Structures are given as structure tokens and as C-alpha cells.
């Protein structure tokens, strides 16, 4: 084996070792790397019980209820399999819409209601001008579910 070949094997070996270690570490910390849990995971009990976690999904169409004269808002977060009701009091981000993605940070109560103290909007990867969006979605008709 020439010295050059030996160095090549050594460098590739180090790289393979670090990649394997990284993959194992990320696999082991999978739950901690997850930024949020979706309603199905919450229903399966995968979300931490009695602790703060993030709940992510779509704001169900027609589910947003505001209490007049306050910042109180209630809505349903859905992944089109399960839904979780969310209560929040505070300022919502610009992109908070029905039918759009959302990530709420808070606690799940025993009654199954998620009380959020922070609500972030999650934008999807679709970019289009308003005219294109209107032509895709005739008025009054729901948009296709996007994951």
C-alpha cells in the first residue's frame, strides 16, 4: 500500500466513522430534534406528558373563534387525521390563516385542550402570485390539503 493510498483509506475511514456516529446520535435524539409534534403523534401519546412541547399542523378551516374585546383565540390544529383544540391569548403572526400551517408552544391539559403561550406561523414551500392562486382555487372551494 502506498502512503497515498493509506492516507486515502484513512480519510475515507474517518469520514465514514463520523457519518455513522452522527447518524446514530441523530437517530437516538430523534424526538428531541423534532421541532413539533403533529396531532396524530399527540393522540398516540408520543408528545411529552405534563411538559411544554410544540404542536404543529394546519389551522382547520372555519375553526378560528375570537373572543370579542380581547386577544383570546381558539382554533383547531389538524393533520387531516386527528385534531387538537388550541387556546391562545396574544398577538398572532401575519401568516396565521385558516388552512395554513401553524406551530404552537404550550401544554396539553387533561381535558385535551392545548394551551399555547406562543403561536408561530409555518409557511409552506408554495410561492405564487395572487392571480395564480385565485385561478387554482375557485371562490368558496377549499384548497387541496398540503402537508
Amino acid at each position, binding site marked *: 500500500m502506498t502512503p497515498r493510498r493509506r492516507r486515502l483509506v484513512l480519510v475515507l475511514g474517518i*469520514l465514514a466513522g463520523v457519518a455513522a456516529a452522527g447518524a446514530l446520535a441523530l437517530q437516538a435524539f430523534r424526538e428531541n*430534534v423534532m*421541532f413539533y409534534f403533529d396531532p396524530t403523534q399527540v393522540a398516540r401519546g408520543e408528545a411529552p406528558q405534563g411538559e411544554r412541547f410544540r404542536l404543529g399542523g394546519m389551522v382547520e378551516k372555519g375553526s378560528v373563534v375570537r373572543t370579542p374585546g380581547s386577544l383570546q383565540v381558539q382554533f383547531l390544529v389538524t393533520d387531516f387525521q386527528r385534531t387538537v383544540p388550541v387556546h391562545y391569548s396574544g398577538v398572532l403572526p*401575519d*401568516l396565521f390563516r385558516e388552512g395554513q400551517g401553524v406551530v404552537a408552544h404550550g401544554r396539553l391539559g387533561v381535558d385535551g385542550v392545548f394551551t399555547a403561550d406562543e403561536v*408561530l*406561523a409555518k*409557511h409552506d414551500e408554495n410561492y*405564487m402570485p395572487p392571480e395564480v392562486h385565485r385561478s387554482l382555487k375557485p371562490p368558496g372551494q377549499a384548497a387541496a390539503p398540503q402537508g
Partner: protein
Amino acid sequence: MDWTWLHRFGSPPHLYGLAGTLVPWLAWPAALAIAAGLYGGLVLAPPDYQQGDGFRIIYVHAPSAWLSLMAYTWMAVAAGIGLIWRMKVAHAVAASCAPVGAWFTVAALCTGMLWGKPMWGTYWAWDPRLTAELVLLFLYLGYLGLRSAIEDPQRADRASAVLAVVGVVNVPIVRYSVEWWNSIHQAPSVMKFGKPSISWPMLTPLLIMFVGFTLLFVALVLVRVRGEILRRERQARWVAEVVTV
């Protein structure tokens, strides 16, 4: 296997001359493409149906983020070649990629934060994509710090090259973080298989910006490579000839 072509490429005066010839051929098209892309993106492209004009930051953010990853990959490949073939100019190339890549990473992080505040509702979240990109910045800074901490140039080259090669595992983590885990960052709109999720009038300026940023990156690296070669070869006779002319 015959490696002579690689060794000719690895001759410092040859690479110094080649880089000098290439720089104007890259820098001018880069300037034109970035000017055209900015005009197209900021003036001609229609506003987004959800984000309005706020989406236009994508024209700087996405190419910066793409180059932050590409610069690291180049740096790691050059560092690996330097380690295995003991090629000094490869280490010079790796060292030249690092500051350029680090600045693209800073640009990607800053533009992302500016967009995140109005759109998500926060500047920063400890999300897999955002965290991995921050780790990428620390890898660049670690590489630069390690280089400047070791005085002997050859040892600095080798030690920093190992760091560059090892850190390359973070590149696929940044790229695929939004697909492997739940993330607040949206999935790729352009760099994916299948049809882009961005309409053509918005996509065209973005593609021009990608080309412009990539050309700019190569031009900047080549300018730095020339300086790096001169610094390393300052005792050599060819440098005295080149510089006095």
C-alpha cells in the same frame, strides 16, 4: 493510475496564472446576473399570494444558503485532496473557500431571521434546519480559528483539513433537515425532484440569482487563492518575477 494532470494543476504558478485569467470571465457575468436577478426579483416578479412583497428576500436568502453549503463542500473536497495527495494548492483553495462560505452563511442566517420575524412571528427558533445552519457557521469559524491558531503552515493545513473533512457530514443534515424532521422551515421549493413549487415569473429571477451568486463565489475564491498562493510562495523566484513585472 497516472496523476500527472493533477500535479500540473497543483503547480502554484500554473494555478496562480489560471485563476488570474478566469477571474474577469467570472466576475463580470456574476455582476450582470446579480443585477438582472435583482431587477427581476424586486421589480418584475409579482408579489406572493400569502406573503405579499415580503417573499422577495428569497432572492438573496436562497442563493446565500445554497452557497453556504456548496462552499463547505468545495472546502472539504479541497482539504481532502490536500490531505491525501499532499497538494499545497489544494490547502490554499480550502483556506480560500472558508471566509467566503462563512459570509454566505451569515447572509443566509440574517436574511432568514429578517423574514422569520414577520412571517413566522419570531426571529429565531431552535429548529433542526436553523440549528444545523448555525452549526455550519461555527464549523467555518472553527476552521478559520484553528488555522490561525497554529503557526506552522503545514501543520495548520493538515489539522484544519481534518476538521473540514469531518464537518462535511453537517452538509446533508442542513439540506435534508426539513425532510427528515418536523421543522418550521418550509420544504425546498426549487432544489428538489419534480416541478418547482414556485411559479415561473418568480422562479426565473431566482435561478438567475443562483447562477450569479455561484459565479461570484468562484470569482471570490479564485481572487483569494491568488493571494494565498503569493503568501505561501513568497520565497519562490517565480513570485518575484510575477510581482515586479
